């Protein structure tokens, strides 16, 4: 998992770099949250289905998406990057909290099907204020649905400190809905792994939903469009830098001798290779042709849209002639 986190950090910094270079419209850095994401995602089975938010690059990595898939959406090429059925993961969700209900519905479906999969949803501390997330807990509890709610409390919702959303620990809300919860050090990858093991097992064994609050910190800006100096101090960030999830595990592994210079070199090489592939995939993306805007609005033929498409095609053709 140290290796995973190292690669994810590299992916993340490549995303930032590509955005700076004008190759991406936007990027939401996950720096600092690698342990939360890798620890939990690695504790799942391949068959478990994940409903992420937008910052879960580490979760995408754990799912093994293709390099270009980290950036395809952020570049503005497509609305989603991979095949959800194949990756067993929904596309990234921008509407805060909406995906928590999707995971709950999916989990109700699992229960109907009588299989032992689990649905997992990731969201932030800010998201816990949305009605949808609370309704998701209520529905999940009511149906005893096998869903794990993962709240990455990274202390910020853009410029708002978590205290605007919650004056008390977020994990403390779930039990009120009849959902057992754990509050975990989100920068300790092993703790995150263990917590998800417990939560997934709880859900898998038919005991209903579980909730995890991973206490971590968003080291970077909210997105590349954000300027965090307007709302937080360097010293805040510094304090959390001391608890960097990668450095921390690295120190521990080095101390026990489990991590050698060769390991580190190998991981860096792998990270660089992934970043290179990602960059190449990004730069190689070909924007779809104009009429593609009409594709897949509907699954079945649609008379109104067909005519709009025809008219627009005629317009483009006339324009080219001219």
């Amino acid at each position, binding site marked *: 998992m140290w290796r995973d986190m190292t690669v994810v950090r590299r992916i993340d910094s490549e995303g930032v770099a590509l955005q700076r270079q004008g190759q991406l419209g936007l990027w939401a850095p996950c720096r600092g949250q690698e342990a939360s994401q890798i620890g939990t995602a690695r504790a799942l089975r391949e068959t478990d*289905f994940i*409903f992420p938010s937008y910052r879960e690059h580490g979760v995408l990595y754990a799912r093994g998406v293709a390099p270009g898939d980290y950036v395809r959406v952020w570049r503005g090429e*497509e*609305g*989603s990057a991979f*095949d*959800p*059925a194949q990756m067993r993961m*929904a*596309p990234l969700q921008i*509407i805060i909290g*909406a995906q*928590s*209900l*999707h*995971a*709950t*519905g*999916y*989990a*109700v*479906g*699992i229960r*109907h*099907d009588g299989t032992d999969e689990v*649905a997992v949803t990731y969201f932030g501390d800010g998201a816990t204020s949305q*009605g*949808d997330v609370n*309704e*998701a807990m*209520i*529905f999940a509890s*009511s*149906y005893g649905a096998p869903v794990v709610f993962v709240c990455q409390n990274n202390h910020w919702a853009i410029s708002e400190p978590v205290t605007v959303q919650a004056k008390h620990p977020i994990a403390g809300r779930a039990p009120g809905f009849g959902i057992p919860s754990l509050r975990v050090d989100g920068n300790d990858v092993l703790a995150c792994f263990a917590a998800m093991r417990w939560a997934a097992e709880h859900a898998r064994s038919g005991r209903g939903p579980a909730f995890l609050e991973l206490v971590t910190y968003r080291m970077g800006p909210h997105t590349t469009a954000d300027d965090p100096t307007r709302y937080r101090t360097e010293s805040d960030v510094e304090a959390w830098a001391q608890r960097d999830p990668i450095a921390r595990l690295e120190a521990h592994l080095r101390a026990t001798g489990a991590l050698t210079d060769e390991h580190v070199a190998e991981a860096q090489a792998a990270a660089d290779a992934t970043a290179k592939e990602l960059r190449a995939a990004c730069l190689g993306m070909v924007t779809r042709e104009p009429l593609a805007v009409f*594709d*897949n*609005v*509907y*699954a*079945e033929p*649609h*008379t*109104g*849209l067909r005519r709009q498409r025809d008219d627009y095609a005629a317009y483009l053709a006339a324009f080219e002639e001219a």
Partner: protein
Amino acid sequence: MTEMTLGKALTAGLQQAMRDDDKVVIMGEDIGKLGGVFRITDGLLDEFGAERVMDTPLAESGIVGMAVGLAFRGYRPVVEIQFDGFVYPAFDQIVSQVAKLHYRTQGRVKMPITIRIPWAGGIGAAEHHSESPEAYFVHTAGLRVIAVSNPQDAYRCLRQAIASDDPVIFFEPKRLYHHKGEVDLDAPLADAPPMGLAHVVREGTDATLISYGAMLTTALDAAAAAEDEGISLEVIDLRSLSPVDYDTVSASVRKTGRVVVAHEASREAGVAAEVIASITEDCFHWLESAPLRVTGHDIPYPPAKLEKFHLPDLDRILDAVDRVLDRPNSLTEVER
């Protein structure tokens, strides 16, 4: 052919859809033991069990959001919204998720969700129980919008909506739930006309009267009354509000040259505005007078005792017919 109410036809449609495909699940408030406040799901819990007939917690966003998740899992959820005015808490899930997920995923994730809405007024109900929100959904790309007006269409179109791989907002004219009509329960779905087609319910030559849902009944009454005055109205039931079947509509307008569009919903940016703007574009040279709207006023739905002054009735429709036919009418003296 069996005679049954529109409500019972819907029940039969749901039942048949659930028998045809065990991925069809229905969900909503009070739809289980109670059979829904309008009894449309009556008997379905007994036949299909609580896993396929799900009483839900009282939260519409939750219901629709859960349906999205079930669709991800391969189910075909049919949602009942208890009354038209309670769909708004689910608006975000409908507009940002249900309508967009197929597009967002380049067609990889289908959203075969049907959202049934007992709809519109005229039943003396309390506030929020008589809304006509169809224009919101017509304006939302990615959705299909159906509004039925009789038992046969109710039975057929509901099955078609459920069988469709696209999300469908399905409006049920609640004041017609007890209206009876003949329904062919055995006609194979494959042979049925697509749900997107409009229906020329009555042929005529002087003007085209376009409506849908419960207002269609009023439109037909108006056509009958007009006949007594020697006016021949062609009446069209749109049935599909998105997409509108402009082939059928334009053919009629080109024949008659005069148009009235009637609905209960308020007027500003409503469905009638859409129909008239499109007709005007398609049939401008055939039009002999300005197409007119007869709609609910641009007011919140009024208290029950006043609703008759809000809802278009036969006389308001006939007055508009007089106007498009350049006959004396209530605005004859009004300067514009």
